[in-house]
């Protein structure tokens, strides 16, 4: 398959990108292209204009900012994976970035692209959801900050406006333990089910590929809050969740996997 016809421009600054995106009604930013191009090839996305933000090096960074780590939206997965700062302060993110696809994918894909794409099957969005990350967006009407729990809205749908550029992702440093469980058939595959769990004052658990967007395992979180043991809390991992069925797993098997993986995550965190 190959994409429908489209125009292409390359932005040299985020301000220019935000200007360019308004030039056409169904324009889209393209960062690493590793989610957008497959969609375009299947004609599931047919943007008339691509605004390439791939070379905005000003948005590629990982730095300390008070109690948080700020990550530029254009930071590639491989740079998140290798960031010394993240490995020290928020190791789960570095680890999860290293679990995405294969080395080629990690050298192209960006954390901002993965987030803005909002795919429920993606690894980083679930980790960011568990971390209660904050997303910084800039658009024609200014800058706003969006908490992760309000960001992911549904199938490939986020709180970002059409003409808003995701510029930065902020995560808290105060994580004591964490676990990431990615269940797949082949090393390079997407997760059939994944679990990202972190502990600061409370334990937060997010699920990969259990719905159309990344989800918090609210049943498990509530159970833990009520003092349940890890195995008991894990049994409630899929509470209120209606997981998809596909070639790799039926909805039932996904529910089962979710509780197994949540239990393993909690065990690994000594909860």
């Amino acid at each position, binding site marked *: 398959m190959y994409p429908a016809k489209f125009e292409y421009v390359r932005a040299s600054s985020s301000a220019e990108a935000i200007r360019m995106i308004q030039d056409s009604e169904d324009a889209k930013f393209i960062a690493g292209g590793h989610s957008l191009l497959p969609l375009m090839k299947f004609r599931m996305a047919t943007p008339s204009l691509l605004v390439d933000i791939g070379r905005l090096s000003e948005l590629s960074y990982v730095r300390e900012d008070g109690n948080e780590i700020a990550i530029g939206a254009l930071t590639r997965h491989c740079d998140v994976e290798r960031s010394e700062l993240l490995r020290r302060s928020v190791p789960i993110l570095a680890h999860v970035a290293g679990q995405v696809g294969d080395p080629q994918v990690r050298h192209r894909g960006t954390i901002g692209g993965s987030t803005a794409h909002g795919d429920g099957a993606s690894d980083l969005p679930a980790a960011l959801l568990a971390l209660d990350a904050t997303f910084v967006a800039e658009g024609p009407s200014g800058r706003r900050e969006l908490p992760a729990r309000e960001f992911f809205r549904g199938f490939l749908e986020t709180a970002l406006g059409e003409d808003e550029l995701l510029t930065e992702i902020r995560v808290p440093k105060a994580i004591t333990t964490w676990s990431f469980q990615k*269940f797949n*058939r*082949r*090393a*390079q595959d997407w997760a059939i089910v994944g679990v990202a769990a972190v502990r600061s004052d409370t334990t937060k658990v997010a699920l990969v590929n259990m719905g159309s967007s990344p989800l918090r395992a609210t049943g498990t979180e509530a159970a833990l809050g009520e003092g349940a043991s890890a195995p008991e809390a894990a049994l409630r991992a899929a509470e209120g969740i209606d997981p998809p069925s596909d*070639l790799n*797993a039926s909805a039932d098997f996904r529910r*089962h*996997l979710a509780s197994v993986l949540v239990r393993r995550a909690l065990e690994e965190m000594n909860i």
Partner: protein
Amino acid sequence: MPGSILGTSVRRVEDPALLRGDGTFIDNMHFEDLGHLVFVRSPLAHAKILSINTDLAAKAPGVLGVFCADDLNIPDHHAFFALNEAVKRPPLARGTVRFVGDAVVAIVASSKAAALDAAELVEIDYEELPPVISMEDALDPRLEPHTPSTDSNIAAGYRDPQGDSVLEDAEVVVRARIENQRIAVVPMEGNAILVVPPRGNDHYRATVYVSTQMPHAVAGLLGGIFSVEPSSIHVIAPHVGGAFGGKAGVTAEHSVVYAAALKLDRPVKWVETRSENLIAMPHGRGQIQYVELGLRRDGTFTGLRCRMIGDAGAYGGFGGGLVLGSTRSMSQGVYRIPRISYDGVAVFTNTTPMGAFRGAGRPEAAAFLERIIDIAADELDIDPIEIRRKNLLKDVSFPFTTVVGTVYDIGDYAKALDRLIELSSYEDLRKEQQERRQRNDRYQLGIGVSVYVEVTAGGGATEYSSVEVTPEGGAIIKVGTSGHGQGHATSFSMIVSELLGIPIEKIQFVQSDTAAVPRGGGTGGSRSLQIGGSAVRGATEAVLEKAKLLASNLLEAAEEDIVVAESGDGLSVAGVPSSTVTWAQLASEERKRGNLLEATFDFSQASATFPFGAHLSSVLVDLETGKVTPRSHIAVDDCGRVLNPMIVQGQQHGGIAQGVAQALWEQYVYDEFGNPLTSTLAEYAMPSAAELPSFNATNVETPTPLNALGAKGIGESGTIGSMPAVHNAVVDALSYLGVRHIEMPCTPQRVWEAIGKAERGESTIPWSDPPKAFEILPLRGQATESDAASVDV
């Protein structure tokens, strides 16, 4: 002369060019005026074509030609062997499409992009027809026949008269309906062809560059389709990026490109995309096997009843015929089975046509036999190795004729199994398994064994070669096989070097060009070394004889005193090293007399050879998630005398990987409407190195008496031996829970479901009465023999 080069791991001479990116693949070839062809394919599994509108496409920029069936008028044809003579495929669909991917329109444009853009503009109106997707549905008499030329969806089939009587004296009968799932071939390079019409004073009708296993067969088949002399078509296979059985014959796409190039009178190229490859290249395997094994309580086999369905896909792909051919001929395996009744039927479905994949019918045989034996072992509580030992063919004299009439050249099955047990520390593995079970480990160890025999160089076992010694003192080998990664240039040069003393670096290797090599059978069915290598050996011996005669003249000595010089460069009088004439001198001398110092040889082997072996696989099964992780794999494969151990191991490794892949990961899946659900490599789960354990691939050597090299095939053995070993290992890990069978691929969900069933006390062995259609098949021998039953690729 230094010690023999045979049996040493000579590095592959063909690799440097490939590693440096100097390969010549069709997509890299450019011609002036080149037209790029793309196909518009059916999105529906079965539909009537109401109308095709190509007006806009024809006017699109860069378009050179737009063709529907009637524009090219290519006769319907088989791609390779005929499964059902009456059913051929129209290369471009005529009135009806019969699978998702069926080619309907071909567009040629000055660039691939222009052709793709134009393809978007073609409008086709379809009226959907009910599709037949599953093999068992195809046997339902109420469902519409697949083609107007047949009265049922049965493409070919037969039954044995014995039927149930083969199980009469059994004390125990175990039975299972086993699926050997459809898989895709997925060579790294898909299909590709470039056809160049005659230019200048070129006397060929066309020069065809094609990614194929069998260039001479391409010339023959194209000649047949277009009613022209095969020798008038020049076929060249440049570098071929893998084939595995998928590049045998002339597909619909090939004949369309050929016709389009001649019609447009310009070079036309078609290179399959990956998405196209997964729906268009013939698939492999695809059998449903109703198997019943009769035994005495002590584990002795008394009889085997098989009722087997083979999926032929649309238009009766030849791969559907394997169920009637090698799956039956190998159904006795390495065991004493006194009686076998085998019914087989190949059916049309609205799916991608079936072809061959590494092993072609033999892995399907080994798989069902080794699986049902393990089911029996579990039922009778006998160790899987013990039950095999008890029933192995031993103390038989070779050639040995099996109950189904197959003649095994030579074998020593116990030797392979003994060696395997020696290498595997079998008892230690069983001990570890016990320990894991006792401590309720989350990860259970499974140990699987298979002992197999297969058939290589089955069909048409003749091959051409010529060997010439050049005035530069080197040699040129020409051979009719068509290597594409197997290491022929190295192996065959070793044979020449061994006999003539000419170093490998000075040997030139010519293959895969019908103008340079007058005839050839190509590469398939693990035939190349034993048949092609033997031809090379024959030609080398003949040229040596010629050279000796010449040398005896030049050196004034008796011919029988002439030997290859100690130095390796030329011939000398035995015991008189000073009396030597070099190869360069000999060849120059012969040239002066107006001849080449060359000999040709056509080798034919009296019958097929039967490589065999034993594999042991161990896997860890995660009881909670059902995920299987292969831990170790040991292969003892007997391909006769080993010429180059490194090349043999390479074949074993690739074969094992593909067998493990089928056991654990790969399956080509359609939904009920015939939509492929695994049409990208994201869904079609080919493993990578990360998923596979390190292989321990070794050999025992039982040379075949059928050729002077003592060589049998090794290309497919790894796949045949490994798949059942891994499959058995998965079930073995869970047998203590009551699990008896899991269908391939043993995916996490299937493993999890099997554990659940066993826990609930339900049977995990699928069985139902085989379809009624088996009862009305003609008796074997009375049925029209299907050509495809004798396929060997």
